[in-house]
């Protein structure tokens, strides 16, 4: 039974299964529809497949079986040469940040624009704005190795935002942030979402999920076990629960 969706589709997974080379079945027949402009939390225990699901969307890995469409592109069938084009349209906050250690904060953020072939004057305007939004403008000349854990995380967030992507994937974006910063970042994501960006956030932060009351997709053992409008971190408290797939 597919969840009825008022928005045109941004992400669509149909019967997607994923097994890693070492034999771990990370995803098991997952189906999911996310419309343009939605804000979705992805929750579930450690090792349940949240990161794996996100990695499929920006094609770091390919599914074992099933169909994946992101913004109209069949990501599971995309040719290697078109992968960079897909990724440039997405903003991704990686769980382990993935910052370039020999670039400064500023350069790390600018790099995401440079690869798209952006004009220098746009870069000079956008990068400081993104750094300002996450509150890191004063550290823009420092290297990742000189930052605290939370500052690195903020850099990763700024990099994901800088291109004004249509789809923003955030993998545990506030794990190293203090509650104040967490709230600020989440409000920021909310504002970005209101301006039209589809946002998907994998998180363990119960407080954030319960306060924001957005759609919550809950995973367990590589399957989606619940999908609730205006849900809570814990199961069954949200409205209009519909199992997808």
């Amino acid at each position, binding site marked *: 039974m597919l969840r009825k969706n008022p928005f045109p589709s941004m992400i669509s997974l149909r019967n997607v299964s994923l097994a890693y080379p070492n034999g771990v079945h990370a995803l098991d027949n997952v189906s999911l529809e996310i419309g343009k402009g939605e804000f979705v939390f992805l929750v579930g225990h450690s090792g349940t497949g949240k990161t794996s699901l996100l990695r499929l969307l920006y094609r770091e890995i390919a599914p074992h079986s099933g169909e994946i469409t992101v913004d109209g592109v069949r990501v599971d069938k995309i040719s290697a040469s078109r992968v*960079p*084009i897909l990724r440039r349209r997405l903003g991704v906050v990686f769980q382990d940040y993935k910052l*370039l250690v*020999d670039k400064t904060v500023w350069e790390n953020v600018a*790099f995401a624009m440079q*690869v798209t072939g952006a*004009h*220098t004057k746009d870069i000079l305007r956008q990068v400081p704005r993104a750094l300002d939004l996450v509150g890191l403008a004063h550290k823009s000349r420092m290297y990742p190795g000189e930052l605290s854990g939370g500052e690195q995380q903020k850099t990763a967030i700024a990099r994901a935002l800088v291109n004004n992507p249509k789809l923003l994937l955030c993998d545990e974006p506030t794990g190293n942030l203090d509650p104040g910063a967490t709230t600020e970042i989440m409000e920021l994501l909310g504002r970005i979402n209101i301006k039209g960006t589809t946002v998907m956030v994998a998180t363990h932060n119960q407080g954030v999920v319960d306060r924001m009351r957005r759609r919550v997709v809950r995973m367990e053992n590589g399957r989606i076990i619940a999908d609730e409008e205006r849900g809570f971190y814990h199961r069954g408290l949200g409205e209009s629960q519909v199992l997808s797939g």
Partner: protein
Amino acid sequence: MDWGRVKFFLGEVVRSFTRNKGMQATAIGTVTVTIVLIGSFLIAQASLANVGTQLMRQIEISAYLKDGLSSTTTKNLIAHVKADPRVLSVDYIPKKQGLAELAARTKGSLDLSILTENPLPDKLRIQVRDTAMIPAVAASVHALAGVADVKYGAKVVTRFLQLTNVLHRVALVILGLFVLVAGVIIANTIRLTVFARRREIAIMQLVGATDGAIRLPFIVEGVLSGLLGSLIAIVILAIAHMLLWNRLASALPWVPLNGAAIRPLVLGAQLLGAGALIGAIASWLSVGRYLRT
């Protein structure tokens, strides 16, 4: 033209040059060593190329004429030998002159004053253009009417030909080995350089950089390393040449080292080109390995 983009790109290159000084030094040093080896080899080859031939110029064919040839016959004979394109020069040495030369040469060991008659025949002294042709020319001269006998340093000529033959092959093998070694070592060095940055490459890919965009700075970097390495090598070679050439020339005054065969500008350009090419190819291949994820 977006200058910002150019600046960004140059920044990339400069950064990895300056942030990874140790690795750059390694790559550059390897290129330097390689180019010094290849350069020395080329210089040695160029300046020694004619040594053998020149040393062997001294070898000549002696054709002993039959007794009592008319002067017309002799003249015709000489003209005939001279007409051979392989022959460089022909000298006619009448028996009288031959005896005088012999007397001069054997002074002290041979008392020629006791001679009542000249024991020597008339003789032609023939110089050939190329040592390798001596046996053939000797044979055809021997076949001529009026020639009693032909002699040349057969043993020396055979040995010389064998030796140049072998040395030529050995030189080719050594040059091949050098180029192979250079290729392997530089490829390895750059492969390790890239290996040390494989995480960076993966991140760039995840952020949406194309393979070409990732490759370019590495290749420019490789070319720069190659150029810098060969530049240092050229300086080393020039200094070594300056210090050693005269000492070598005076240590072996009889070896006709051909200093003019070395054209510094051409050689320099060749070595620079080789360095740059090596750097570019090595980078291209090395980065390629880590682009397929």
